[in-house]
Structure formats: structure tokens, C-alpha cells
């Protein structure tokens, strides 16, 4: 009971803090927190696959980047408005997921990882190589932010827009995870064969989880295109997929809170390290090794085992 009141107080506090961000921080840091929120959504979408379904994808940037590029191409090349481009970007990410999932699900474990990695790299190579269409590695700058009657051009108003979108998406993810569907996914994670024997169509569940994860990753990608007003092939690169993967694992796979915390930590570290040296990739590598060796169940896991040691001597 006290635990429940405690977590209620904590959530109210977090919401209050998130609402107060634009008032309390300078615009640069408002931007940084906006980025944290976007990557929290991206990491949570990956966790639907990795933590809940037990499928480690190394190509999650594909769906993120496909949505970003759809926004850029429709707004800048086709001169359409965001009323069309924004939903179209989600459709594009979902369709990409729906096409890639059957191939990726031909394998498990390392095979799944290799296939998702390879497929994402195909998308990256198109964005990188097809210069006449995508501008190659120059990327596409000048993406206008959507205008729903009030302008999102300053950091504060865009922050609230992202906060609302990410909050709604998180609520949907919570509903998915807590639904019978979500429970079945966790069952599949623990034992595919047992769930099969219980009459579940395991493949279909995994397929739907894959496509949902792609759709939510696409939402994050669309927000990120507006946030930076720019898209480039690095959105699709394996480093982007790798960052999402370590966000999930650093925070704690199999929870939604964990990946969100992991995302905040990684985004903060990337900003901090990049302001001092150019060796963010090196630091990212070291984080991978250190987390795997010392916190395999993530920060959430560390907290849980600390509590258990305190209360159960």
C-alpha cells in the first residue's frame, strides 16, 4: 500500500517536473529534454520487441529514419503539408516494419539480430547513395515544423507538443503491455514452445509486436525530424540502432520506465561528451562493455537488487 502511494507521489512529481521544464530551464536545455523525450519513445518502442517479446533487433533505426525521411521528402520535395506528411510518415514506418518482419522472423537470436541489422543497412544505403533523391550524406535541411493554429517554432511550445505526443504514446504502450496481448508476448519471451502448445499463434504475436514497435519508432522519428528541422542518413545508421539498444539495456529491458531513464542518461551523456571531445563513439563503446559486465539488468535491476539486499538481509 505504501509502495503504491509512493509510486503515485513519484509519478505526480515527475509530471510536475516535466511540465515545469520550459519555465525552469534555458532554451538549450529545453531542447535537450525534448530530445530525451523523443529518444525515450524510441527506446520504449524497441523494448516492446527486446524486453517484452525477447527479440533483439539491431536495426530499429530503419523505422525511425524511414518516418523522418518521409516527412522531409513529402514536405520539401512534394511540397505537401504536415497534415498529410505526419500521418504518412507513421504509415511508411509501419509498412516498412510489416515488410521486414516476415524476413527477420525467419530467424531467432543471432540470426534475427543479423537480419534486422542487414535490412536496416539497406535502407541506410539508399538514403546515403541515392543523392538525386535524398541528397545523400548532405541530408535535407529546412523542414518546417507543423502549425496547428499556434506556432511550434520556439523551444517551449515545441517541447509541450512533444510532451503531449510522447505522453499519449506512452499511455498506449502501457495499455498494450498490460493487455492480454502484452501478457502473451511475455509468455512468448519466456518460452515459445510452451505458448505454441497452449494454442497461441506465436508467429502472429511476434509479427504484430514487430509492426507495433516499428510504428512507435516511426512516431519518434517523425518528431525528431521536426525537432532538428533536418534529416540525414545518420538517422538510419547502425549507431542510431545501437544507441537505442543500449538505452533499453542500460535502463532495464522488460519495463517501460527503464528504457526512458536509459534514453535520458544516454542523450545527456552524448551531449556532455560531445561538448568536450569528439570521441562519443569511444565512450559509447565503453558504456556497452561496462553495462554488460556490471549492470546486465540495467539501472532498474540495480535498484531492485539494492532494495532486496536492504529489506531481505
Amino acid at each position: 500500500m505504501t509502495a503504491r502511494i509512493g509510486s503515485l507521489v513519484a509519478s505526480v512529481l515527475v509530471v510536475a517536473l516535466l511540465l515545469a521544464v520550459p519555465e525552469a530551464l534555458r532554451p538549450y536545455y529545453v531542447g535537450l529534454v525534448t530530445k530525451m523525450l523523443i529518444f525515450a519513445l524510441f527506446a520504449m518502442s524497441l523494448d516492446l520487441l527486446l524486453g517484452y517479446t525477447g527479440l533483439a533487433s539491431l536495426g530499429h533505426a530503419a523505422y525511425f529514419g524511414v518516418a523522418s525521411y518521409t516527412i522531409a521528402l513529402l514536405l520539401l520535395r512534394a511540397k505537401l503539408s504536415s497534415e498529410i506528411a505526419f500521418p504518412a510518415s507513421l504509415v511508411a514506418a509501419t509498412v516498412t516494419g510489416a515488410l521486414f518482419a516476415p524476413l527477420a522472423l525467419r530467424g531467432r537470436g543471432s540470426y534475427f539480430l543479423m537480419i534486422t541489422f542487414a535490412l536496416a543497412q539497406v535502407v541506410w544505403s539508399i538514403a546515403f547513395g541515392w543523392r538525386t533523391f535524398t541528397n545523400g550524406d548532405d541530408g535535407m535541411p529546412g523542414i518546417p515544423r507543423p502549425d496547428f493554429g499556434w506556432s511550434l517554432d520556439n523551444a517551449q511550445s515545441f517541447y509541450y507538443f512533444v510532451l503531449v505526443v510522447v505522453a499519449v504514446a506512452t499511455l498506449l504502450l502501457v495499455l498494450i503491455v498490460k493487455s492480454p496481448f502484452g501478457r502473451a508476448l511475455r509468455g512468448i519471451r519466456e518460452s515459445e514452445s510452451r505458448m505454441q502448445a497452449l494454442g497461441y499463434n506465436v508467429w502472429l504475436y511476434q509479427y504484430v509486436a514487430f509492426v507495433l514497435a516499428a510504428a512507435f519508432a516511426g512516431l519518434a522519428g517523425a518528431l525528431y525530424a521536426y525537432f532538428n528541422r533536418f534529416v540525414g542518413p545518420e538517422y538510419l545508421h547502425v549507431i542510431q540502432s545501437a544507441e537505442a539498444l543500449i538505452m533499453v539495456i542500460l535502463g532495464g529491458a522488460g519495463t517501460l520506465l527503464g528504457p526512458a531513464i536509459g534514453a535520458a542518461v544516454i542523450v545527456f551523456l552524448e551531449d556532455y561528451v560531445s561538448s568536450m571531445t569528439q570521441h562519443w563513439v569511444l565512450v559509447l563503446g565503453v558504456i556497452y562493455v561496462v553495462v554488460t559486465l556490471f549492470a546486465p539488468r540495467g539501472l532498474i535491476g540495480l535498484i531492485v537488487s539494492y532494495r532486496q539486499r536492504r529489506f531481505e538481509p
Partner: protein
Amino acid sequence: MIWVIDTLNGIAFGMLLFLLAAGLSLIYGLMKILNLTHGSFYLVGGYIGLTVMQRTGSFVLALIVAALAIGLIGAVIERFFLRRFHLDELPQTLLTFGFLFIFADLSLWIWGGDPIMITQPQIFAASVPMGDYAYPLYRLFLIVVGLVIAGALWWFQEHTRLGTMLRAGVDDAEIARALGINVSLLFTLVFAAGAALAAIGGVLAGPVLSLYPGADFDTLILAFVVVIVGGLGSLRGALAGALLVGLLDNFGKSFFPQFALFTVFVPMAIILVVRPTGLFGRR
């Protein structure tokens, strides 16, 4: 005639891919480790070879030093890091991923961001007349070296005591251990040998393809496609897959330069649908 040249180029590239895929495949077959650092072994091996070549001018020495150095690094990674997570796929993959980034950044630091080539050994600087064209002798040398290494690996696997142990370990590591085979040592040896092969591939590729930051990812992806097509854990599969991918990639690059990867990935997708364990893979 251009077809013959494209085919030869494809085979030469396939041989380089084989050097990577053989190690990747045997390491997975024996220890169930998907080694994402394999592309880094190739790139850093190539860079070490470059430095040795610049200092001493000896290509043979470059090959030896690169193979030994990367073999040693591989042994250390296996002994002190991967070993802690035996048969636990995700942490092992994450560790190799971490090392991939560490090596990528360190080599960018040491060798810079511009593409560099290794000067080819003097004896192979000539070219062979082929119809209206002149074909570089070095590429023919690559094909020969690749075939020799493939033959040596096959002979080693089929006809030596260590090779028999390796096959036993791939089939069932637990039983092999119970039969008194020193599986622990075997793991380190195979990991080091796989790493060294990748480094040799990097040095051999140096005079043909340039070494550049990102080559680690690019070659890793192609090596993945090779083992997906050929099947993990099989030497035969690695060779067949490498030749197929080498040829497809080469023809793809000359006919559809903007969509080069497609000519490789479409066949991969088809094979995945028809035979998910690859041409020579086992369930």
C-alpha cells in the same frame, strides 16, 4: 571480355569475404558467439599492415604482424570478456558491439579519417593482358591466396587432431568436454584464429579496396550476408556464400551503382524465405 573481368573481380572480392566469413562462421559454430567485432579485426588488421608496410616495405611482414597482433587481441577479448557469458547470446553480442565502437573510434584517432591504400607488393604490380584489357596480377594473386587458405582450412578441419576436436566441439561442446577435449583452449584458439584471418583479409584488401572509417561496418554487413546465405558454422557454406556475394556485389556495383546493396540483399531475402538456415546450415 568485360564479363570475364567482372567475374574475376567478383571472385577476388569473394575470397576476401571468405576470410572474414570463415572466422565468423566457425566462431559462431563452436561458441554460439555472433562476433560483431569481426569487421573491426579486418579494418584494424589492415591499418596495422599499412603501418608495417610504410615502415619496412615488406608485405609479408605486414601480413604476419597484423595477424599476430589481431590474433592476440582476439584471444584477450575471448578469455577475459566473452568467456564470462558462456552461451548467453545477448551479453556476448553487446560486448562485441562495444568493442566494435571502441576500435572504430581508436582507429579513427590513430589513422585519421581519409581513405588510405596499402602499396601493393612489387612482384604483383604487373598486369596480365586479357583481350583489350590489362588485368592486375595482384587480383589473381588474391584469388590464389583465398583458394589456398580455403584448402588449408578444409584440410586442417578434416585431417588434423585439432580439426577433429573443432568438429566435435561444433557438434556438441558439452559432450566434447566430457570426452576430455580441452574445449576452453579450443575456444580461445578458434577465436584468435578467426580474428587473425580477418586481419589477413584486411591487409590483403588494402592494395585493392581502400581502408577507411566505416569499412568495419561495411565489411561486417557483407560477411553477415555471406553467413546468412551460406549458413552459420559451415566452412563450405562460408566459401559458397562468399563467392556468391562477391560476384553479386561486383556485378551490382557495375550495373546499378546507386542500388549496389540490393543485388546482394534480394537474393539474401529469397534464401531466408526458402531456407532460413542458409544453403549449408544445420538446424
